[in-house]
C-alpha cells in the first residue's frame, strides 16, 4: 500500500515533457527574448543613445527591473528558510518553486545591471577600480553570494530526487540521464548522507536570511545614500525588504496556480496551500502598506519645498496614475481580495498574485525615476527630452526580454527537475499517515 502511494507520488511529480501549451509558451518566451537580444545589439552598436536615458533620468526601467528582480528573489529565503526554521511544514511543496524563482531572478538582476552599464566591456572595472566604500560594490558582492547560497539551497534538497529520477533511464532520455548522473549519481540514500544534507540545509537556511536582508538593504542604500528627494530616507532598508517579501510571495501564488493547473498537481498544491499563502500575502501587504504610509505620509505632512515637486508629482501630478495604480494593485486590492475566505481560493489568489507582481514592478519604477526627474536644483537650459522619461521600444524590449528570460529559466527547470520535492513529499506523507 505504502509502495503504491510512493509510486503514485513519484509518477505525479516527475518532470513532464512540454505539451502543446507548454511549447507555445516556450516559443513565445523565446520570441520575446530574441527581440530583447536584437534591441540589446542595437544598444551595443549605437550606445545608450537608443534609450530615453539622459542626464537627469539616468536610471530608467533597467534599474527598476533590477530592483524588481532583487526583490522577487527574496522569496527563496522567505519560503525556504524562514518557514523551515519556524517549523512550518505546509510550505514543503512550495520550497523548490520559491528557490527557482530566487535563482532565476537574481541571475537576471545581475545581467540587467550589465545592460544598464551601456559599455559591458568595462564591467571588469567594477572589480579593478571599485571602491569598498560604494554600495555598488557591496551589491556586486552580496548578489554573487546570494546566488551561490540559493543554488546550494536548490541543490542539496534535490539530491534524493536526482537518485529517484536516475532510476527512470528510458523516460529521461540520453541527455537528461547524463545530467542527472553528473549532478547526483553519488547519492545512495545513506543515513550519513541524509545527515550531511540536513545539516547543510539548516546551515543554509540560517545563512541565507541575513544575506537576503543584506541584498535588499544594500540595494535600497544605492538610493538612500544619495541625497535626493524621495530617496533621502532612513526607512528605505525596511521599506525595500517588506516590499520584496510581498512581491516574492505574490510571485509564488502565480507559480503555484500555473504549476498546479498545468501539471495537475491539485493533490500536492492544495486549496489549503493557497489559503495559507494568501494569508502570508495579506500580512506582507499590510506590513508594506505600513511602510508606504511612513514613506509618503510623513514627508507629505512636512511638505518641504525641495520635496514638494516630487511628492505632488506622485500624488496628483504626471506620475499619479502609475502611483495610485501601484499602491492599489500591489497592496490595497490584493488585501481586499485575500482577506475573504473565497478570495483565498486558487483562481482569486492567482489574480491577486498577478496584481501584486505587476503593481510591484511599477512601484519599483516609481522609486527609481520620478526622483531623478525632480532634482533639488531646477533644470535650466536643457533639451526638452531631458525633462521627461518615456522608455524607448529598445528599453521595453530589453526589459521584457529579461523578464521572459527569467520565466524561461523557471520553465526549463520545471521541465528538467521536479518542481515539488518528491522525496520530501513521500517522507511527509508517510509521517502524516503514521501520525
Amino acid at each position, binding site marked *: 500500500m505504502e509502495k503504491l502511494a510512493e509510486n503514485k507520488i513519484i509518477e505525479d511529480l516527475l518532470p513532464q515533457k512540454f505539451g502543446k501549451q507548454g511549447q507555445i509558451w516556450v516559443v513565445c518566451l523565446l520570441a520575446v527574448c530574441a527581440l530583447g537580444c536584437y534591441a540589446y545589439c542595437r544598444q551595443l552598436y549605437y550606445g545608450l543613445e537608443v534609450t530615453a536615458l539622459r542626464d537627469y533620468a539616468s536610471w530608467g526601467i533597467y534599474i527598476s527591473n533590477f530592483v524588481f528582480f532583487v526583490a522577487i528573489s527574496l522569496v527563496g529565503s522567505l519560503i525556504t528558510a524562514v518557514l523551515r526554521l519556524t517549523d512550518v511544514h505546509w510550505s514543503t511543496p512550495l520550497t523548490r518553486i520559491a528557490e527557482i524563482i530566487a535563482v532565476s531572478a537574481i541571475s537576471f538582476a545581475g545581467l540587467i545591471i550589465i545592460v544598464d552599464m551601456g559599455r559591458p566591456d568595462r564591467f571588469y572595472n567594477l572589480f579593478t577600480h571599485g571602491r569598498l*566604500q560604494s554600495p555598488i560594490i557591496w551589491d556586486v558582492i552580496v548578489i554573487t*553570494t546570494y546566488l*551561490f547560497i540559493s543554488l*546550494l539551497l536548490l541543490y542539496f534538497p534535490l539530491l534524493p530526487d536526482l537518485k529517484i529520477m536516475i532510476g527512470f533511464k528510458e523516460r529521461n532520455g540520453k541527455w537528461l540521464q547524463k545530467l542527472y548522473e553528473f549532478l547526483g549519481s*553519488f*547519492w545512495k540514500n*545513506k543515513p550519513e548522507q541524509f545527515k*550531511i*544534507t540536513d545539516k547543510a540545509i539548516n546551515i543554509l537556511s540560517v*545563512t541565507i536570511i541575513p544575506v537576503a536582508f543584506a541584498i535588499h538593504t544594500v540595494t535600497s542604500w544605492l538610493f538612500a545614500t544619495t541625497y535626493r528627494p524621495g530617496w533621502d530616507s532612513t526607512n528605505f532598508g525596511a521599506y525595500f525588504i517588506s516590499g520584496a517579501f510581498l512581491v516574492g510571495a505574490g510571485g509564488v501564488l502565480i507559480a503555484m496556480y500555473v504549476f498546479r493547473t498545468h501539471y495537475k498537481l491539485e493533490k500536492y498544491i492544495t486549496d489549503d496551500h493557497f489559503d495559507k499563502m494568501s494569508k502570508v500575502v495579506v500580512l506582507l501587504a499590510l506590513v508594506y502598506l505600513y511602510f508606504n504610509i511612513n514613506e509618503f505620509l510623513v514627508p507629505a505632512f512636512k511638505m518641504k519645498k525641495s520635496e514638494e515637486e516630487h511628492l505632488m508629482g506622485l500624488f496628483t501630478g504626471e506620475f499619479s496614475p502609475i502611483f495610485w495604480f501601484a499602491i492599489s494593485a500591489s497592496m490595497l486590492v490584493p488585501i481586499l481580495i485575500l482577506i475573504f475566505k473565497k478570495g483565498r481560493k486558487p483562481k482569486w489568489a492567482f489574480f491577486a498574485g498577478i496584481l501584486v507582481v505587476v503593481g510591484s514592478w511599477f512601484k519599483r519604477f516609481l522609486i527609481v525615476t520620478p526622483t531623478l526627474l525632480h532634482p533639488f536644483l531646477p533644470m535650466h537650459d536643457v533639451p526638452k527630452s531631458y525633462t521627461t522619461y518615456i522608455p524607448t521600444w529598445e528599453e521595453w524590449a530589453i526589459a521584457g526580454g529579461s523578464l521572459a528570460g527569467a520565466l524561461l529559466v523557471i520553465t526549463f527547470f520545471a521541465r528538467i527537475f521536479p518542481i515539488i520535492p518528491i522525496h520530501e513529499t513521500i517522507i511527509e506523507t508517510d509521517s502524516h499517515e503514521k501520525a
Partner: protein
Amino acid sequence: MRKHKLIPLLILIITFVPSILMAQAVEKNSLLLTLKYYNDNNVTHHLMVLAKSKIDGKFQTVPNIPVKFYISSDADKANLIGTGKTDDRGQAVIEIPPSAKSEWLKSPNQNFVVVGEATKKFDEGRGELAITKAKIKVDTAEGRIIQAKIVALVDTTWTPIAGVDVIVGVKRLGGILNANETQTYPTDSSGAVTAEFKRDSLPGDQKGNIILVASVVDNDNYGNLTSELVVPWGTKSVYMTNFDHRSLFARRGHSPLWLELLAYSIVVAVWSVIIFLLVQIKNLKKLGVE
C-alpha cells in the same frame, strides 16, 4: 467704379509705408562705448572697452559688438592697434602692441579711439580717451612700510604728481586687501604715499611671500596704473591634502579601516560557510563511492 475703390487704399499705403519703415530704422539702439587705459606694473599696457546701451529704459551691457581700437585717431587706418568683440559682460580687451611704439612716443599725452561696428540691433558707436602718460612704483622701507610713487611725463621729464588717490594693499584672490585701516592715500608733493603694513599672520605662499600692490583706479588724467612687489611678509602656507587619508569619500584602497575590517569579516564569514558546504558535497560523493 472699381478703380475708385482702390484709390483710398493706395493713399493709405503711400502715407503709412514710409513711416513704418522709418519706425523700424528708429528701433536700432545707440551704442555707448567707454574706453579705459591700464598700465600693468609698468610693463604692459592694455585697453578695455565697455559697450552699453539703453534698453527698456535701463543701461545694459551689450555683448557681441565688433570693436576696433585706434591709437591717436581713427582717421588713419594705420593707427589701428587691435580688434575684438565684446563678451557676455560687454567688455573687449586688447594689449597695446609693440607696433604702436612710434605713435606712443610722439607725445607725453596720448589719445585712443574705439569704434563699435553697427549691428542689426545697434548703431555704430564711438568712444575716445585721452591720458597723460604716468607710472607708479611700489617699494618698501624698513619696519614694514609700503611706499608708492607716481610720476607723469611732462614734456620729456618724469615729474612727481601730487594729489592723486592711490590704493595701497595686498593682492588677494578677487581684490586688494588694505594694508591697514586706510585703503586710499593721496600723493604728497613728491608724488609719494606711505602706508604701514599691519597685517600680521597673513597667509602667503609656501615661502611666505605676499604681493604688495599700489594702484590708481579710473583717474581722469592717468587712467588705471598698477604696480606690484613680492615681499616675504606673510606666513608660510603648508599644503594640506586629505587625498591619501582613509575616509568614506576617499579613492579606492583608502576606505576606513573599520569598514574594511567589517566588510571583509562578513565576506570571509559567509564565504567560509559556502566553502564548507562545497566540502560537504565532496564528502557526500565520498560516502556515495564507499
